[in-house]
């Protein structure tokens, strides 16, 4: 009848409201407009390219000891000078970056995976799952991160873990220390998400738990997880550097930014040979700051709620 007809034409005009592209594309567009975040991203990309591609262009990748070239200051042959064993510092910084970035990324992936999974399970199913997971997390959280890492690192040294495996052990250690904080954040988000009306609507639709958890909850967690993950890489790189600086993380001859600074750890090197510790120190600083700035930009952009 006429009411229905007019209603459909009205709806028809309403239906021509602009339908924009997916929220991910919108987020990307907003991110591109965020200068600071893009600067952070550029630095991160540069550091990765520098560390992973840079050594391909270096003539000094053999790691040989050149006693004649010990502790030389920067020169046209060695842009950042050489270290106590006559190795090219620039090449060492790049190779160390490979390890530091890999350790940071890998431990982030592992801790984000464990943390999100356990946090989501705890928050969604609550009850006994929640109790067990969160008590374990609390236990790990009561011990401050760095001291815990130091203890673990000291144990590693006592157990004489071969140096080539220490890198992997350090990744595991960092993940072990980092997942509880992540799990707690994810759990909190899940607890609030599960009370949202659309979750009730999903229940009312008769959807299974699996579908509710993976189709409805998880996509809402993705922004949070991405932000946590990006900020976490920075933290992991920093922790690895601190550990290695104290000789409790990755050990020479495997170079990392942390243990490069450590090997310049005496007054003479510190005062007279700044090319030994400034490049790795600056690399850590620039990378961690850049990652955090980028992570903050992501956080601003990935908030799915419509902005006013």
């Amino acid at each position, binding site marked *: 009848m006429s009411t229905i007809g007019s209603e459909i034409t009205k709806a028809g005009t309403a239906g021509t*409201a602009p*339908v924009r592209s997916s*929220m991910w594309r919108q987020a990307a567009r907003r991110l591109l407009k965020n200068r600071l975040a893009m600067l952070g991203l550029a630095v991160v990309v540069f550091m990765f390219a520098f560390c992973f591609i840079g050594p391909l262009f270096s003539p000094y990748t053999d790691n040989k000891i050149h006693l004649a070239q010990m502790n030389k200051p920067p020169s046209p042959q060695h842009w950042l000078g050489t270290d106590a064993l006559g190795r090219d510092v620039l090449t060492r910084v790049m190779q160390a970056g490979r390890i530091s970035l890999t350790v940071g990324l890998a431990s982030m992936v592992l801790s984000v995976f464990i943390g999100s999974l356990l946090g989501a399970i705890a928050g969604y199913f609550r009850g006994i799952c929640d109790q067990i997971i969160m008590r374990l997390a609390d236990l790990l959280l009561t011990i401050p991160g760095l001291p815990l890492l130091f203890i673990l690192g000291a144990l590693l040294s006592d157990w004489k873990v071969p140096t080539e495996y220490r890198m992997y052990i350090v990744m595991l250690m960092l993940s072990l220390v980092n997942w509880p904080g992540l799990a707690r954040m994810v759990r909190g988000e899940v607890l609030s998400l599960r009370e949202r*009306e659309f979750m009730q*609507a*999903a229940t*009312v639709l008769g*959807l299974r738990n699996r579908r509710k958890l993976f189709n409805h909850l998880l996509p809402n967690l993705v922004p949070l997880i991405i932000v946590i993950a990006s900020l976490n890489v920075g933290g992991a790189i920093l922790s690895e550097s601190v550990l290695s600086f104290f000789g409790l993380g990755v050990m020479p001859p495997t170079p990392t930014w942390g243990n490069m600074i450590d090997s310049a750890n005496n007054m003479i090197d510190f005062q007279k040979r700044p090319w030994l510790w400034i490049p790795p120190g600056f690399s850590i600083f620039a990378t961690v700051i850049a990652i955090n700035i980028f992570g903050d930009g992501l956080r601003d952009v990935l908030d799915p709620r419509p902005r006013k």
Partner: protein
Amino acid sequence: MSDLLEIDRLKVYFDTREGTVKAVDDVSLRVRRGETVCIVGESGCGKSITAMSIMGLVGSNAAAGPFVDGQIRFDGRNLLRLDRNELRTIRGREIAMIFQEPMTSLNPVLPIGEQIMEPLIEHLKLSRKAARARAIELIRKVGISRPEQIAKSYPHELSGGMLQRIMIAIAISCNPKLLIADEPTTALDVTIQAQILDMMRQFKADSNMSILLITHDLGVVAEMADYVVVMYSGKVVEEGEVVELFTNPKHPYTRGLLKSKPVINQRQDELYSIPGQVPNPLELRPSCYFHERCERCMDVCRTREPRLREVGDNGKVACWLYEEAVVHA
């Protein structure tokens, strides 16, 4: 044949720190096949809790949940006794529900189309491809043009009215026997309200679905209802056929509501000009809960609770004015 939905002496009591809140207290109602029943009453009288009980949304997480008692028989089964899996096959499939706020009832990060497809895949076991085609058909059916594009868009890209249409599309997707709509048009502006109500009526006529419509708006009741249940402070105070109730209201509360009802066909948000306020649910003593606001309050009203009893044909009222024993005394 038994009625589609029979709620029998439903009680939902919340234990709070300050005391027990009897959100729903001894409510019985029935919805026949193909019938539209409206529950009306002021905010806080227990309409939503009644609806949520039907859906098994109260008392499900036993630890903190309220005390629930009574029976809710749907198509012969007592919904309050079903386990989680049995409930799941009824929700969305045989009973669908739409809420007041379409914007918050849809998942903000899932495309509209996906959300329409889900119950089709879950209950009708359609393939993703078939479900997608059916979803697009449903979007068209609720009067939205360019359904393919709408299917790909996200909730925040659509208006409230369009989202409520989408909610209706999802609700009717599996041809439910009962549609529960909790204030489905309260959040929408007046012209959109009319369109949404027209659409619900249309689908009901097409499919012989029953509707349990919750509202505080008598204009909506007049437009939609076959049968009306008036609630006050967790109790049914009057019920009856819509024409009878509108032409010959019995309970003083219903009369007050109708007196404050504006001109026909003109809805508005604030209907109530009945003096006084709803009593505090924590301070209810045996009495007619309406007595503080009732013009015709008698002594007995303050100390004894009137029972819901049949008056006239097919109507019921809970008021001492209609208890012969008292009136004759």
